[in-house]
């Protein structure tokens, strides 16, 4: 056994209490990393909304954090294998939710991403990612024994594309792209033969022009604005430009907590959802930004580490999926903030304001925690 990774005892040590064994088995580095990132997220949100009419968002986020933490604990405790059994049911529920959103969702900013349940709003597309990851894990576990036949696999793979389409027509291009990236990443790490995937990718590239034609005007504008942010500095490019100003103006050490002028005086609209990294980089500078990226990098590496040590392929795929989800969320969101990607509604895990996103990541991490906890098969 190499390295100080994990604690490698539980079953061998006779006479330990169940609680001590549980405590020893829980993946503390994972928990600690999440706690640190979430704390930074709260700190950042506090700076972003304090003193404005959005100040209530901090308390709201705190409540969701609490709910998320419980969800994390619960999903760590639940055996992921029992979840795999109901993966298709979860997938089906996610599809239903997505359809409801498509048909009757409330309109937020011209697209239909929200579903209202009482006074709570939720974005099923966020949770749909988890459902897809679970189904992917289930597919791998189904195919673990026998050699997978394309005849049985193909319809299931096609079924996996349904949520992508449903999300894309909301229209929420960001999440749809993200979901695709997650599936491709998992495919890359789980498929023995990569060629079918390469063919599929090639086909998708061919579909880009068709996709462009079917895009909404504001989406086209956003993509175009990304290509040349200074062209329309009051419209779509405004976000990108102001975000770049904010990040750049942070310089090496930042302007200090609560002192970012771009943030404090509202030059970045809605910066608590899509642009929290901009706020962070403005106030904490290059050093702070790199520290946060390092934390995410560590989290992702740690998730892959859990995947490597998982007791079965399904658990490994689960962790790979969650790691990929985290990775792409971070990369796309930060790239967007830095003006390297178009402005799409992709959140920064644990930092962005919003219940759906938080819950998704807490549950995702819970699943990985569960895989980690059960790596020794007790």
């Amino acid at each position, binding site marked *: *056994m*190499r*390295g100080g*990774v994990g604690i*490698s005892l539980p079953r061998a040590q006779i006479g330990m209490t169940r609680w001590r064994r549980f405590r020893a088995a829980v993946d503390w580095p994972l928990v600690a990393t999440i706690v640190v990132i979430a704390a930074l997220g709260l700190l950042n949100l506090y700076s972003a909304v304090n003193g404005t009419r959005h100040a209530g968002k901090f308390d709201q986020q705190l409540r969701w954090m609490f709910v998320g933490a419980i969800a994390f604990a619960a999903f760590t405790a639940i055996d992921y294998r029992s979840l795999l059994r109901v993966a298709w049911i979860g997938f089906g529920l996610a599809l239903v939710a997505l359809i409801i959103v498509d048909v009757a969702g409330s309109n937020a900013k011209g697209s239909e991403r929200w579903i209202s349940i009482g006074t709570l709003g939720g974005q099923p597309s966020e949770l749909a990612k988890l459902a897809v990851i679970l189904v992917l894990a289930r597919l*791998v576990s189904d195919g673990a024994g026998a050699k997978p036949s394309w005849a049985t696999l193909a319809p299931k793979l096609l079924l996996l594309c349904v949520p992508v389409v449903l999300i894309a027509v909301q229209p929420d291009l960001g999440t749809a792209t993200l979901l695709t990236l997650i599936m491709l990443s998992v495919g*890359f*790490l*789980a*498929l*023995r033969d990569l060629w079918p995937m390469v063919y599929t990718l090639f086909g998708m590239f061919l579909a880009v022009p068709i996709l462009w034609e079917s895009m909404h005007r504001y989406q086209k504008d956003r993509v175009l604005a990304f290509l040349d942010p200074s062209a329309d500095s*009051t419209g779509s490019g405004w976000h990108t430009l*102001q975000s*770049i*100003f*904010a*990040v*750049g*103006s*942070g*310089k*090496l050490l930042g302007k200090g907590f609560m002192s970012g*002028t*771009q943030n*404090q*005086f*509202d*030059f970045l609209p809605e910066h608590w959802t899509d642009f929290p990294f901009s706020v962070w*980089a*403005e106030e904490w*500078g*290059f050093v702070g*930004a*790199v520290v946060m*990226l390092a934390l995410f*990098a560590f989290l*992702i*590496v740690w998730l*892959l*580490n859990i*995947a*490597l*040590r*998982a*007791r*079965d*392929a399904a*658990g*490994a*795929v689960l962790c*790979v999926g969650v790691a990929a989800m985290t*990775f792409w969320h971070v*990369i796309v969101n*930060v*790239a967007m903030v*830095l003006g*390297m990607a178009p402005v799409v509604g992709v959140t920064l895990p644990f930092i962005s304001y919003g219940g759906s996103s938080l819950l998704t990541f807490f549950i995702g991490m819970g699943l990985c925690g569960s895989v980690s906890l059960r*790596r*020794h*098969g007790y």
Partner: protein
Amino acid sequence: MHEGGSGGVALPTLGRRLRWVLLAMLICFGGLVVRLWQLQVMRGDRYRERTVSNVVHERFLPSIRGRILDRDGVPLADNRPAFNLYATPKAMTPALRGTLKRLIGLSDEELEKIDGRLAVAKKRKVRDPVLLLEDISRERAALVDQERYRWPDVEVRSEPYRHYPQGDLAAHLVGYMTQMTAEEASQLGTQGYSSDELIGRYGLESMWENYLRGKKGKERYAVDARGRRLDEATAAGLIQGDRVTEPVAGYSLVLTLDADLQRIAERAVAPHPAAAVAVVEVATGKVLALVSKPSFDPNVMTGHLTKAEAKFLDDDPRKPFIDKALRVPYPPGSTFKFITTIAALEDGQGREDEPIVCKGSYQVAGDRNLFDCTSSHGRLDLVGAIQHSCNVYFWSLAERVGLDRLAQVANEYGFGSRTGLGLNGDAPGRIPTVAWYEKRGRFVVGYTINGATGQGDVELTVMQLAMAYAALANGGTLFVPQVVDRVARADGATVIQYQPQVKNRIDTPPEILDLWKRGTYKVVNEPGGTAYGYVTSDVITIAGKTGTAQVAAKKAKKDQRQIRGWSPSADHAWFAGVAPADTPEVAIVVLIEHGGPGGKVAGPVAKAILEGWATRVRNRQHGTASGPLVGGAILGRLRQIVATWQLSQRAAATPAPGPEDEP
């Protein structure tokens, strides 16, 4: 590779491809870090500046424009507080525009103005307030202010505004201000002008712009993304350096003009549709009154001229925007005869007692034309010829000396060159010579005949003639007309004191000047004089010369507006003279454009002005009669400045009672 607890990796492909995953992560995260380095470390300073300019805005603090005062401190141009409507282009949505229109009842013309200004401002900073409408009424200001809480980006500011308390008094001299053109705005932008401010456009307002303007102050303040001002404490933390640079008030001009005399002069020409008057001090060339009629109300011109009014003024055939005292040269008629007199006597070509018989017409050698005199004067000597304005006498003299000699004397007296005042397109006029005619064709003696009596191609301005008559009365010193006596600071202290400037010293023998004096005395004061009965005054003795200048028959254009009592083909009526006759103090020139016979039309005007001068201006001790200065300013700052100004004025005025001070 790490060995799993249950032996081997559960997902073999993961182990194999892990290095690619780590490489991909390295590239992606590395890319982000490189980008962060680029933005935050390499370009950090630039972006920091950008974010500061996002938040910290600058606003000019208006400087108070210098005032224009008459010689006694009566304000001709002043400042008063006015309500100016401002809004940020970003806030001016079509809906708000509509609401505003209904709320304060904007006219189409005003809306057009507003839209134009917004369009210009939009190209620059959409979050900076731009002046929409200047000098709105108190009622409108109140209406907008009431809605302030609804539209924080629309505001009414109380700012000093140019005001001409005497209305159209000396309008051509004082001038007016207008909005800058886009071109001027881009040129002057670097000199601290903002595009929405007024700039001196005409008269002294334009010529002395650099002195009057002052220096604007600057205020830096912090705003959020919506352009709302941040509180003082927050702003203090964001703004480095001075928050406020105080404005410097412009210099005031103290004129040589006498507002009372100016008013007397303008009242005197009131019955006439078009006229020009100049009254100058004989001993100094200082201008006491300068009238050009028709004129305009500078208060209207300064930011309140509607298109309809502008069109009405533009369509006036009398050209109200052209200064008739300075810019338009007219044939002087018989007022020009002193040139002929001086030329002939200096050359020994004539004698005072030389009798010439006037039979009512004159035949020039080699010319078939017969030149008609005003009447058949009979036998006259030179003084009599001046008195009766006998053309024949002067034609005879002119024929002897020739046109070029007349031109030489005329040039000595300042005709044919600009007075040096440099205001309102001050014209040189025209003194023709033989060469001048030959360049244009053939010279004939008839041109000399015309020139001798100020007809034909001889043209000069009212101002020029007034300076020449002053020179005749002061022994031959031709002054540059002086309008500005001194430049003063806002607190009253003199910055520049101007001394009378001599344009030319003419060595006309005193006997000739004396002869001219006697002749002009008789014109006014002895029966048979052309101005006798019209200018003859028992208040003050006046000496002068009448002139009736024929104009080349011109028909009014068909579409021209008809002006009662004014026909473009009628003679110009002149009177040029001095008072008091024995020891002249002031010279006066009155021109009634297309008014008719000089003595009858221009004479009474000159008489009224000079009598007014003698009774109400001459013996006044300057400085005390002004009374309290009209402050007109309500803003605290303005009032303060005015108070200091008043104090210094009084202090300067009281300690020196003149010799004529009556007990």
